[in-house]
């Protein structure tokens, strides 16, 4: 398999604090890959560097052979990388429906259409996405008034609306009840399979990670200390020492 995303020698520091330290990483097309590590390990920063939210101090990020460093988020999305956020990042005062509808409008480049009525566009597509993530009954509710778990689902629907080839999910189940977690993960897995997506995600729930990841990378203090199949990572002595040990048996 070929690498869809290649990252080489990536560095990022905040006021002297190194959050990403010489990270090199390859993501294969079609794989489901988890990035794990304790809080503050630098997982979110890593996602921010890939998606253009932050600019790396040094290093390269290339997606399907294209250099992403320096591109703004909107250009990177258009290349086929969409993401969800660990901290809810939606339009809280718009309806659930509009949250997704606007993403579809943007995906089609229709944000420059000054004549077509916005609300009449992509009604079916929006409805389908809401059904996919189980939010159809809440379509007309104000997004900010949804439960935390449902706002997370909405994050997912918005990301999917950009029809990415690479999907980045930053802690998609954080704050969800066990039941919501199970449902979300099941639907993510189905969507990824049905659409042939490459998935890169971070997750604190180890049963989720070991349940769906084909490969796992472990970040610790901004360094990738191990990368490989779940079995290889599970049995890696360094990983057990710094991370999995704390989480008990996995």
């Amino acid at each position: 398999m070929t690498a869809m995303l290649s990252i080489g020698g990536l560095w990022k520091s905040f006021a002297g604090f190194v959050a990403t330290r010489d990270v090199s990483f390859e993501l294969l097309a079609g794989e489901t890959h988890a990035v794990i590590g304790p809080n503050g390990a630098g997982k979110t920063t890593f996602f921010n560097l890939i998606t253009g939210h932050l600019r790396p101090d040094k290093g390269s990020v290339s997606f399907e052979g294209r250099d992403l460093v320096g591109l703004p988020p909107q250009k990177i999305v258009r290349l086929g990388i969409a993401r969800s956020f660990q901290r809810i990042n939606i339009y809280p005062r718009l309806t659930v429906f509009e949250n997704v509808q606007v993403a579809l409008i943007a995906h089609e480049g229709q944000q420059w259409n000054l004549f077509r009525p916005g609300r009449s566009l992509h009604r079916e597509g929006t409805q389908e996405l809401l059904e996919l993530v189980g939010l159809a009954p809440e379509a007309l509710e104000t997004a900010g008034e949804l439960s935390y778990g449902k706002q997370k689902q909405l994050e997912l629907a918005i990301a999917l609306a950009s029809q990415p080839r690479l999907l980045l999910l930053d802690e998609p189940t954080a704050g969800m009840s066990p039941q919501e977690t199970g449902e979300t993960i099941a639907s993510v897995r189905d969507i990824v399979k049905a659409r042939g997506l490459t998935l890169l995600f971070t997750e604190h729930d180890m049963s989720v990670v070991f349940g769906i990841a084909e490969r796992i990378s472990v970040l610790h203090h901004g360094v990738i200390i191990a990368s490989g199949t779940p079995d290889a990572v599970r049995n890696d002595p360094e990983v057990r020492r710094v991370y999995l040990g704390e989480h008990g048996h996995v």
Partner: protein
Amino acid sequence: MPQRRHLIASAIVVLLLALLPLAGSRYAVDLTTEVLIYVLFALSLNVIIGFTGNISFGHAAYFAIGGYACAILLTTYGWPLALALPAAVVLAGLVAAVVGYFCVRLTRIYFAMLTLAFAMLVWGVAFKWKEVTGGDDGFTGIKMPEMISHHVGYFYFTLVMVSLGVAALWVICHSAFGLTLVAVRENSVRAGFIGVDTRHMRWAAFTVAGTFGGLAGALFGMYHRGMYIENAFWTESAQVLIMVLLGGIHSFVGPIIGAAVLYLLQTFTNQYTPYWPTVLGLILLVIVMVLPDGLIGLVRRVKARGGRS
């Protein structure tokens, strides 16, 4: 879809307005002409305020550019109205595009201050460029086309122009562009991550606002047969801003109501007292303290209460 209902309601309003001259009151006709002009001016400003969430403190600049340009082209250069008016509107839009290019790099108070700074520059040009603009004597004696030189003719002309302008703004605000602007306003980071170039969107909104502000200004100049540097002054920008806030920024019709109410209040206040600035201060106080979402918000709240009981 409430669209059809809106269309019928608007048609009725326009029709009723069209009947106004039959009442035979010159005063009413003139007053309404001016209200219509301010309605368009306020609506144009709300494309920036309501739809991008930034406050412009210099919208009078585009009003003045449209007004002066139309007046000068008609009078100094003898252009026909059919050329002078579109040219003035395009010029206002172009200047807005240039100014907006810089302004949309900033947000919040920095954005507001930059719009103010550019507007003061425009005022400075109108003041200093005496041979073209008439300086602080104003540009007077505009040559009006025969057809609209009578006050009733001008009223109908304004009614048609403002109706077209309002209709165009309605379409733009409810378009895919308008909906995306709302997303940018609500969460510009998220909007970036769905593939929207938020700065370009805000730039386009600024340009649209300046263009229609220019049309309002052109109508204003011809109505008064003159343009004056006060029309470019920051107090003019403040006034239209208050109209928008008074009506309510998060609704399309809000600024229409705000413009009409504020203008009429000003006119009537001026008949009885010289204290309009004081009254204006009180109005502002009321907006800030009890009407944060304007008169439209008040109407909605009353309606919601009525619906419940």
